[in-house]
């Protein structure tokens, strides 16, 4: 079990520390249906020997991590030296793929995670107050955003928010702006992706919180009422503390998933305006020539990023563990 989990981690880290061997290229003549041309190609004879000696590839150390596609220390230092203003420096930084992806990813994480939790909680409280018979029906429909395959879900939404789709048209009508297009501006695209993110994840938070509400200690609630607590005070001092562990759990999962945001970007074809680390990996692996080392390095950076985000939660769990021991 451990092996099965550890092996991929080790192989990804190894891959990220190696690059392909130097390729010997030669000029040759290529012919095809459309005539002949002078073109270069890889000299396999010359390259084979090097490959067989070092099957993992050329040892590269951290150089992949530091190149322009990733942390880009050199480029960052360069633009710091030549900066004319702080905002100029930041716009130079966000022109680099990694930092551009991070600026969207972090905004997404910071906005979507709390909003999901709040919305999920509100739905849970409202559904909990419903008539018993209605509940099953409401629960099913509430789960739909999570159930419908994201790939297709976002494609359907993509056309609904088109300037001629029902939602796009509706927004134009509301804002009284016939030229409003969600997909053409960076700001609106970000908002759209975040709204989708909240919509998609809210059911998860809802189900967990709704369940938590079922176990509310009725006697505490009653004594709070006898003490004259208002509804708001009861939510604040009884309900919220009770479901706090669930909030931590949802936050943990959501932080991790939101940090890896990917499907909406592809589904909405939003890569011109917003990218994420997972999208960079997808792009590296999706080209005609696949960049395995680059993708591996980005994956390791993703894991480190998740680790930093989750560190408060992890420290807490560690303390719990020590208490238990």
């Amino acid at each position, binding site marked *: 079990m451990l092996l099965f989990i550890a092996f991929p981690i080790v192989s990804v880290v190894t891959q990220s520390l190696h*690059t*392909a*061997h*130097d*390729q010997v*290229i*030669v*000029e*040759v*003549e*290529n*012919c*095809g*249906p*459309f*005539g002949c*041309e*002078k*073109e*270069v*190609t*890889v000299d*396999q004879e010359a*390259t*084979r020997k090097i490959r067989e000696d070092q099957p993992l590839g*050329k040892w*590269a150390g951290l150089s*992949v991590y530091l*190149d*322009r*596609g990733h942390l880009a220390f050199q*480029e960052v230092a360069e633009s710091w030296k030549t900066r004319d203003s702080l905002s100029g420096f930041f716009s130079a930084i966000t*022109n680099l*793929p990694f930092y551009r992806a991070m600026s969207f990813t972090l905004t997404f994480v910071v906005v979507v995670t709390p909003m999901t939790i709040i919305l999920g909680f509100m739905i849970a409280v409202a559904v909990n107050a419903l008539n018993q018979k209605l509940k099953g029906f409401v629960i099913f429909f509430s789960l739909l955003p999570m159930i419908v395959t994201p790939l297709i879900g976002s494609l359907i939404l*993509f056309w609904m928010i*088109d*300037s001629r789709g029902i939602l796009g048209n509706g927004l134009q009508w509301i804002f009284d702006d016939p*030229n409003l*297009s969600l*997909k*053409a501006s*960076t700001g609106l695209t970000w908002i759209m992706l975040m709204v989708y993110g909240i919509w998609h994840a809210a059911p998860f938070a809802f189900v967990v919180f709704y369940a938590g509400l079922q176990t509310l200690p009725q006697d505490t609630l009653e004594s709070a009422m006898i003490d004259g607590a208002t509804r708001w005070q009861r939510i604040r001092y009884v309900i919220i503390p009770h479901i706090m562990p669930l909030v931590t759990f949802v936050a943990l999962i959501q932080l991790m998933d939101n940090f890896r945001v990917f499907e909406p970007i592809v589904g*909405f*074809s*939003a*890569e*011109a*305006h917003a990218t994420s680390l997972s999208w960079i990996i997808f*792009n*590296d*692996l*999706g*080209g*005609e*020539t*696949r*960049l395995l*080392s*680059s993708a591996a390095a980005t994956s390791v950076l993703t894991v480190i990023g998740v680790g930093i985000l989750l560190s408060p939660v992890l420290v807490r769990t560690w303390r719990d563990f020590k208490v238990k021991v």
Partner: protein
Amino acid sequence: MIKKTLMAASLALMASAASTAAYAACDISKGRVNVVGNEFPAIQTIGKGAQACAGDGVEVKTNLTADHQKINVAGMSSNPAEYTSAIVANSSIVALMNEDLIRPLDDFIAKYGKDLKKNQLISIDGKVMAVAFMANAQHLVYRKDILAKAGVEPPKTYEDMLAAAKIIRDKGLMQNPVGGAYAAGWNLAQEFNNMYIGYGGEFFKPGTAEVSINNEQGAAALKMMKDLSGYMNPDFLTHDSNATSAEWKAGNVAIMNMWGSRVGPLKDTEGSSQEVVDNTDIAAPMTVGGGSIPATTLWWDGWTVSKNTSDEDAEATFKAMMNAINPSILGDDEIAKQAVWLIDGYKPTDAAKGVFAAAEMGTKPYPMRPFQGLLHTALGAELPDYMQGKEDAAKTLADVEAAYIAAAKEKGFLK
């Protein structure tokens, strides 16, 4: 109804007769054939043709999927290879060449492939590495009625296209008359490649992997793309060729540069109105900047044979694939319409005239360079900044070069 059933039955009979005949024609006694390739009707026809060779001691399998490029390298790297043949295009053959996964076919051709036309053979350094069976290119698609109302001829150059678009908009015929697959990523990069070639640019310094696109032609190509985008739907950066075709069918677009392989479906009434169907016409690709070479690229699809496989299996694969591209398949009208075939005896249909015109005008094929794909990816990721007006052309092109250099270093093409 009865007539239909009878016809279907007789067709089925004929098909089975054909497949037995094909089985005999394959002349394979033993071997394993497994083909990986993209998924569209023409390739499915090839897959079926290869499968017709299955029989006693001969196993033929196919795996045709849009993700073929993600699995073919891994699937041919193992020894023996899972796939004995991969169907590739001029852009994707380099991934197999770079890893040394396909074998020269000269011996097989000398023995079993005498009937192949010279122009079907894809040779690299004098060795035949693939056999092409169909061609494709992007070319002009236009609406006859709209252009007639605007009083303009179908554009021959991109400058004409801009002028025509202006007239159509000014006359109030259409708000955004120009279409184009300008979605950020592969599509946008491809449009840049087209335009850059049209302006006569060279992507690399000859004989090296050193990129050189930050030049006059690069800037001119970007400027033209930006000008065109002014006449496109404002969401153009999200419109891939699927979305662009949908726009066309909805009658929102009057002129566009589109794949020849997509012309057939554009004329399908199920998706669009009679008016659009009747008035959709195609023409040769456009030139740009006074150049004579069209601003587009030619593509071929062909099959290869795996290197990491036994000679017996390789021979079986070659024969099975030869059977799949047997000229007799063109006897079926449906099949003849599926693609611009390079197979002997193909008579160009009306939908093929754009691709043929492209070939006649001396259009360049998409380059089979080991590192062209890296540049393509870099272009796709960096160009949107310019298209959105966030950067000037020189800065964007410098970014593309920097992104390419980082990738090429990782792949060992640059030191």
